[in-house]
Structures are given as structure tokens and as C-alpha cells.
């Protein structure tokens, strides 16, 4: 069983907790001194770093939300001077809720190490050819896989997503052994292979690491049988590093956390109370090794359970259950997170007021689709056809531009949908 870093991956739990306490105390000392936001919220609760004497004391600290991150845009949450930041990434970039994440050289090195652990655990070594089919852009994801795979010594092909026929040709000609992409991409590639009459058995691809969107066991079986590979889940947050923060080992019994780089808690999303291991709740992450952009009790919005028992693979860090749902209003479309708030702001900009709308999300041919239904009301020029049509066109253009792909926009009568359910997700992740 290959471990990239056996000493850490199979570390004694008591030693791990000491490492976590040291990292947490150092982080709290640094942010208290260097980051205005934390200094302020700590003062508000009369907390000084000396008050943190155990990992349990973390519960006394306030949470950090994505709102906090965008309110501190661009650099107010950075704990180091900008000259020490060598990389700037964003989450799904949009000017309404912008979030910038900085990485120092050591942050990048740490992330590379995590990805190396992820890939090496699955048997990836320098003989492998890795096709990274995640979009290279301002989001961090593919860069981590690039760096981590190169670190192992594998041959990396940075492909981005899309252009399925090209992707298949590369797989065949470049002799790709490992695919890294969204799970829906994998299914679209399988479809292209059928269309191109290429038998997946004729390829040397042996495994795929998939993430960035929820995907169930049904999808996994489909990917595995249609592409003739083993498919593994990986998870992460761009706000911390990106993918590789938690990943499935060959046992496929949950995703191993990297507890020497962050502390994971599960909370009741309504009360904020910390739940014991085994209970389902919202995952909260506190970084203990991040230099440029440390996060204390960041609410991820992902729903999962923590399993502290040892995995048969021998790794001792806790595992989290695969993530299929969220407790916030974020919906992942084509691998990118979108909120009703973002759509609402676009509508507001165009119409001047806030119409009642619903996002209907579905998946057709393994591609996420979005239809926005907007209620026609008295305030909404319901008898002026030309204005309506222009409005629909403007919304369609603005939202499609913002997301980067075509959406469907419809005006409907009042009462057609439940106005309190802003997102109707018709997709099934199994």
C-alpha cells in the first residue's frame, strides 16, 4: 500500500493532536496580529490568543462565512504582505461576490504535497500520464493536480475541459493512464468515445480522480463501466487550497482528511453547535498551515459526517463521508458554485427591482442545465409583450455571460412555483 508520506499519513493520534494544537496556536497568534478582521472579532468576544489552550477551545471562536470573505475583498484577510504571495486564485469569479485567495510559496508547496499524497495513494507514479481536464483559469483546481502530479514525476497533460473529441484523441494517442476532471465530464467523454467508435478497453486509462461536484455511487458505477477505469472521489475548497484536501484511498470507505494541515469540525447548521463524530452536519474547516490566507472556522456549506476510526488502508487521519448535499443556498452547476443571490442581483440590475424567481436545475445528457423562471406580477409590465421579450433577452444574455454557458429564461404566471424555494434541483446524484 503506497504512502507518499507514511510518517504523517499513519501518525499516532496523540502526536497528530499535538501538531494540530501547535499549528492552531501559531495560526491564531499570527492572525490576531496581522489580520484586522480576526483581531476585531476576537476583541468582540474578549478573546486573546492565550485563551486557546486546547483544540476544544476552538469551539469558542466565531465562524467565518463566504460573506465574510467577500466583504474583505480583495486583500483584507491576507495575513502576509502581498509581496510574499506568489499566486492569486478566485472561487467562481464574479464581481458580485468576489473572493480572492492568496498563496505563498509554502502554501503552494503544502498543497502540492496533499495532491501527491492523493495520487500516490491510488498508485500513481512517474510512469503515469495524467490528463488534467479541469478548466485552467482563475480557479485553483487544475493547478494543484498539475503541481502534485509533476512532483510525483508523472507526465502531465494540461487539457482544460470541453472539446471532447480532442480529449479522446489525446487519451488514445498520448496514452493517458489517469483522468482528472468533473464526473459529468467523464460521462460526456464516454459518450464521445461511443460516437467516435473508440472502445474504452483499447485505451490504457486505468483510473480517474473526480470532484468539484456531487456524484453518487450510481454515477461512479457508470463511469467505471463505460470508461473501464477505477473512479475515485476527491474534495477540497478553493478558499483553502483546492481539491486534494480529502480523498478516497483504494478502500473507498470515505475521504481521508489531511489533519496536519487543517482541523475539521461538523456543526449543526442551524445552531452552530459542534456535533460528535458520526453525526451529519456542516463541515467547518480551520487551517493550521496556511500562511497567506488562514481561515478560522470557515463554514463550507457541505454536509458530511466525520469518521474517526482507522481505515483498513492504515492511514490514521479521520475520514469524511462523501458529500452530496449542502446546507447553504449554493448550487454547483457544471463544477462551479452559483447562488440565487448572484442570479437575483443580475435580475435586479436589469429590472430595477427584485422579481420573484426560481432556479430550476436539471441534467440532460450529463450536462447541467439551468432554467430561470421569473414571476410576472403587477409590477412587471405583464401586458407589454415587447418589454417582456426584451427583458427575457437581457436576462438571458447577462446570466449566460456570467456563467459562461447558455441558460433558459422564462416568464411565468404567479403561483406557478413555490416562491420560497429559490432553487429546485431536479438532479439525482445516484
Amino acid at each position, binding site marked *: 500500500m503506497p504512502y507518499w508520506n507514511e510518517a504523517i499519513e499513519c501518525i499516532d493520534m496523540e502526536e497528530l493532536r499535538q501538531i494540530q494544537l501547535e499549528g492552531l*496556536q*501559531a495560526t491564531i497568534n499570527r492572525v490576531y496580529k496581522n489580520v484586522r478582521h480576526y483581531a476585531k472579532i476576537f476583541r468582540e468576544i474578549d478573546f486573546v490568543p*492565550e485563551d486557546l489552550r486546547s483544540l476544544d477551545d476552538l469551539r469558542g471562536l466565531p465562524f467565518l462565512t463566504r460573506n465574510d470573505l467577500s466583504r474583505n475583498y480583495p*486583500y483584507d484577510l491576507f495575513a502576509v504582505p502581498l509581496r*510574499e504571495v506568489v499566486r492569486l486564485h478566485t472561487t467562481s469569479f464574479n464581481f458580485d461576490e468576489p473572493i480572492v485567495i492568496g498563496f505563498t510559496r509554502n502554501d503552494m508547496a503544502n498543497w502540492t504535497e496533499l495532491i501527491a499524497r492523493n495520487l500516490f495513494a491510488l498508485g500513481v507514479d512517474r510512469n503515469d500520464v495524467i490528463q488534467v481536464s479541469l478548466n485552467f483559469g482563475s480557479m485553483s483546481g487544475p493547478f494543484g493536480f498539475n503541481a502534485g502530479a509533476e512532483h510525483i514525476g508523472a507526465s502531465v497533460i494540461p487539457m482544460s475541459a470541453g472539446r471532447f473529441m480532442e480529449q479522446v484523441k489525446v487519451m488514445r494517442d498520448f496514452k493517458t493512464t489517469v483522468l482528472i476532471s468533473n464526473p459529468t465530464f467523464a460521462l460526456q467523454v464516454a459518450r464521445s468515445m461511443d460516437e467516435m467508435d473508440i472502445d474504452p478497453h483499447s485505451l490504457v486509462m486505468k483510473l480517474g480522480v473526480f470532484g468539484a461536484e456531487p456524484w453518487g455511487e450510481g454515477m461512479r458505477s457508470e463511469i467505471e463501466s463505460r470508461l473501464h477505469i477505477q473512479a475515485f472521489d476527491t474534495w477540497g475548497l478553493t478558499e483553502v487550497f483546492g481539491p486534494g484536501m480529502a480523498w478516497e484511498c483504494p478502500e473507498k470507505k470515505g475521504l481521508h482528511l489531511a489533519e496536519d494541515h487543517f482541523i475539521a469540525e461538523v456543526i449543526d447548521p442551524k445552531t452552530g453547535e459542534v456535533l460528535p463524530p458520526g453525526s451529519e452536519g456542516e463541515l467547518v474547516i480551520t487551517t493550521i498551515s496556511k500562511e497567506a490566507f488562514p481561515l478560522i472556522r470557515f463554514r463550507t456549506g457541505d454536509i458530511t459526517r466525520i469518521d474517526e476510526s482507522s481505515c483498513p488502508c492504515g492511514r490514521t487521519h479521520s475520514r469524511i463521508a462523501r458529500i452530496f448535499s449542502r446546507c447553504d443556498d449554493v448550487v454547483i452547476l457544471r463544477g462551479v458554485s452559483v447562488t440565487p443571490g448572484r442570479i437575483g442581483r443580475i435580475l435586479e440590475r436589469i429590472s430595477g427591482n427584485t422579481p420573484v424567481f426560481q432556479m430550476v436545475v436539471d441534467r440532460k445528457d450529463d450536462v447541467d442545465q439551468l432554467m430561470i423562471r421569473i414571476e410576472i406580477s403587477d409590477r412587471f409590465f405583464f401586458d407589454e409583450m415587447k418589454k417582456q421579450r426584451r427583458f427575457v433577452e437581457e436576462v438571458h444574455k447577462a446570466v449566460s455571460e456570467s456563467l459562461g454557458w447558455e441558460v433558459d429564461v422564462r416568464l411565468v404566471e404567479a403561483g406557478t412555483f413555490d416562491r420560497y424555494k429559490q432553487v429546485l434541483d431536479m438532479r439525482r446524484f445516484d
Partner: protein
Amino acid sequence: MLRLVNVNSCYGLVHVLKNVSLHVGKGEIVTIIGANGAGKTTTLRAISGLQPVSDGQILFEGQVITNMPAQKHVAMGIAHVPEGRQIFAPMSVLDNLELAGLSAYRRFGRKQVKTDIGIIFERFPVLKDRQGQYAGTLSGGEQQMLAIAMALMSRPRLLLLDEPSMGLAPLIVKDIFQIIENLRAENGLTVLLIEQNANAALKIADRGYVLETGRIVMEGDAEKLLSNPEVKRAYLGRDQKEIWE
């Protein structure tokens, strides 16, 4: 091997160590770096029982040794080489070594001490050459070697070194650090090293901690700390008014 959990210490009303947590694994060389007055020496003295700990725990090989009388530490396997060498100048080199062998004499007998002195002379030939000389007549580097040798006489498992490079010429510093590395490589000695010379320390250490006004502000692998500009800032003790320019 050594674990500090939330160690706090005060000089009167001045709170000099604030929740210092660190650990040193068996066979590791770990360094604590920081500016003057950060609390590095205080930390070492707290481990050795020379400085009272007001709160927190120090564990050595699983046993709690917080505030244990200093003399008991030597018998437990912890040796402390203090800042400024502090050898006995009016005594000969040999006498210094024999005196340092007192704890080993009690625990292992006279013959063992004699053998150990022989081993020390093999490792530090210059001390053998000067064994009859007054220790005060040795050069700075030779005195540092003697101080380390004296610590080794107690047959420690953990060596605490306080600023071994202080006042020494760069070439001599190189020699001393080479000796420390050899001690780990050949004898499996675990070392906790306090240094202002962050560069030299981080070059031989496996891991490091940065202490700033009594608080640990950074920890990690030595090479990560070496490539970190903030480390230089903590080491030089410059104050930051604005985080970015």
C-alpha cells in the same frame, strides 16, 4: 520525546512565555529561533527546571516534568548547554569533564565515566590535546566544544543547546554545527537548539519554531521556514505597522 503544552512563564509580573506548545521527536534536531528577548532561553530554562512554569505542561518520554527540580532532569537524560558556555575557567579541561561526569558516575560507575572521557577525546581531539590546560585559556570555539562535551558526559538522550554560535567566528560555527549533526547521526541524540543565527540553525534542523514576544507564531519543516520572509522578520524583530506596502 519532549512535549510542551501551553507552557506559560513569568519574570515577576512580566509574562514572558504565552501558551508555548512544541514537540521534539526522538532523533530530531528542532530549533527555536527568534529575536533577542523573544523568550527562547526562558523556554529552555523552563524545560530544564531552572525557570518556574506558571501554567502548562512539559512531558519528557511521556512523564510530566513540569517544575521538577533541575538536578533531577540530568538523571532523566536531559542535558543543558547554557548560553555563553559557562565552563569552569579555573579548572583544567579534564577536571571539567570529570565534574560533568558526576551524574553518570552515580548512575553508571567510575569505569563508565573513564570510558566516556576517552570517547569524548576521540570525538574532540583538541580537548585531548589541551586536557591539562585551564579551561579559561581555551579559545571560544574550544570552550563551546568543552561545554557540549560536558553535557554529553551525563549520557543524555535529549540535548538542549542555548545559542552555541554566540560570539564565535563563522568557520568555528560551521564546525560546531557539524558536531551537532554528527551527534544526531552517530549517536541518535535528540537536539533542541536555540539560535539567533536562524540560517545556520535551520540548515541542520529538521523542524523549527519561531518565537516572537513569548508566542509561537510559526512552525514547520526547517526548509519551509528558511524560505519564509516572515521568518526573517521575526528573527530581526522588526515591528510591522502596515501589513502591506
